[in-house]
């Protein structure tokens, strides 16, 4: 039982990170229709922004986290201007290849900047554990779950209780109508990318102490975020959360109880099954092809 609780907490923590990555992916997809294949590299950049400020820069924890997230916000704006704007009217597949191409650039730019040697990003709760029913659970894992829950609450407030968030939803629903209503569509779309980049940044900062900070960490995260999105439902925020937690839990529990070699096959098998039997996922949009 103690083992199970420990695995459960680690699975939830990992799942929270996947959920945040998936949320960033979904926000961008609902607003712009772009399937962002660089989403994993966004998280990798978040981790390395933390490495730059905390490890290489030696900043204090709050300053380091804020600096890293500010850098991610800037990066989101840059991505909007350099990748999204020029390709916004291209076919979906061109956008896919475009985001993959820029993902290759990001990964190799990080390799140039930081080298291939992995970094250790320390947690504010380094080495601290609590005892839950006999299970030793790292405080970091609990902090990750709590931070994610708080962020999801804030996102809910943003999208349901603020003018900005409601305007963003209007753009996601119907871009032309939103423009006719006098909304500044360009600025709102830019903000969407910034928000996605900052969320990925938080995910990266939280993932850093759980894995090693490695420039190749982007692709596995992207694949898990895709699986989470499909399972939860394309374009659905609750779906991204549920899917992320499912993928994180199956990865950790599957490795412990089923097979460590085939742990990832559970998530991807579930993803393919969902695609075949229920392509809209648990919470997702009904339309199969949003074009």
């Amino acid at each position, binding site marked *: 039982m103690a083992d199970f609780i420990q695995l459960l907490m680690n699975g939830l923590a990992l799942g929270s990170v996947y959920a945040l990555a998936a949320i960033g992916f979904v926000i961008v997809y609902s607003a712009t229709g772009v399937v962002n294949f660089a989403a994993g590299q966004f998280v990798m950049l978040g981790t390395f922004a933390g490495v730059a400020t905390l490890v290489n820069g030696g900043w204090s924890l709050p300053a380091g986290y804020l600096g890293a997230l500010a850098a991610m916000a800037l990066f989101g704006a840059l991505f909007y201007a350099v990748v999204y704007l020029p390709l916004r009217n291209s076919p979906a597949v061109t956008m896919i290849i475009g985001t993959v191409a820029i993902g290759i650039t990001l990964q190799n730019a990080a390799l140039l900047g930081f080298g291939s040697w992995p970094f250790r990003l320390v947690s504010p709760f380094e080495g601290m554990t609590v005892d839950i029913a006999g299970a030793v659970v790292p405080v970091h894992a609990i902090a990750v779950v709590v931070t994610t829950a708080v962020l999801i609450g804030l996102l809910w407030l943003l999208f349901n209780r603020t003018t900005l968030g409601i305007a963003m939803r209007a753009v996601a629903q119907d871009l032309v109508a939103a423009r006719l209503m006098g909304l500044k569509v360009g600025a709102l779309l830019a903000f969407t990318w910034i928000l996605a980049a900052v969320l990925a940044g938080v995910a990266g900062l939280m993932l850093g102490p759980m894995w090693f900070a490695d420039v190749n960490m982007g692709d596995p995260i992207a694949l898990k975020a895709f699986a989470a999105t499909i399972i939860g439902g394309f374009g659905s925020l609750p779906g991204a959360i549920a899917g992320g937690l499912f993928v994180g839990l199956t990865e950790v529990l599957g490795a412990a109880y089923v097979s460590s070699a085939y742990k990832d*096959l559970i998530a*991807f098998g579930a993803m*393919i099954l969902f695609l075949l039997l229920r392509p809209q996922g648990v919470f997702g949009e009904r339309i199969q092809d949003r074009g």
Partner: protein
Amino acid sequence: MRSLLGVAALLIVGLALSLIVSEYTLRLLNLAVVAAVAVVGLNFAFGYAGLISLGHAAFVGLGAYVLAILTTKLGWSPWLAAVPAVIGTGLAAAVLGYPLLRLKGHYLALATLGLNVSFGIVATNWIDLTGGTNGIANIPGLTIAGHELSGERPFLWFGLAVLAALALIAAVIHRSRYGRAMMAVRDDETAAAMTGINVTRMRVAAFTLSALYAAVAGCLFATHIHFISPDDFSYAHSITHLAMLIVGGEATIAGAILGAVLLTFLPEWLRVLGDAYLAFFGLMTLAILIFLPTGIVGLATRWVRRPAPPQADAAIGAEEASRP
């Protein structure tokens, strides 16, 4: 006639290059030819039928693994092993295609991506059969009339012949009623169904054809490199195949070949930039997508027909150029 001219041009340029370039460039040319076979195949699925497949490398891998296992474990000749490799891969694509191809757009993209990742996981972990991450080594090369195709130059000649034959077949299919039916399904599914085209069957046929070509590419790859491992068929390669098709000019056979050659050589040309070459490779691919939305073939068509009226834009340009 134009396809014959195009294939003749391909053979002449390829033969001429094979006589003058260095051993290293020959090796790259061979990789480009293998990639071109796969990408000409992908053109059936994506170019003609409009199916975004991010799992093409899995079919290349399936073909390569079947050939490698039959030759190294059962001692078959590579020629004989290539038959079940290609047919088996085609069957696998048809069986997978029926349920999968009900999906469209990026749903299909992510489903095929999941397929490719799953293939990689199985190939990595079914160690008894696939050797795991160590891969399969000592795959025998092809022999023609008692002469082994050892060395890069003879292999390039053989590869070019295979590519030329497959490109010709693709051109014939493209112009047949089946090719037109695939494109009709791509352009308007409902209208295609109204004219009596079986939409599902056309999609599965395009997907299966693309997998058959992929398996041939896999067999060429295995007999050329003599070694395969799961990394050779990761989903990153599927994305590269799609990028080759789009950079070359989608829906055209000439574009598929040009894109395969360009994206095989581009990283090598950028090696002068030292460690930064892959970062620039990504930026250049993005630049091509932004500034040449119809690919190299689209650019060439526009350039040849410069005073064309403005409505002769992307789609029509690509159509014209699709008769190489």
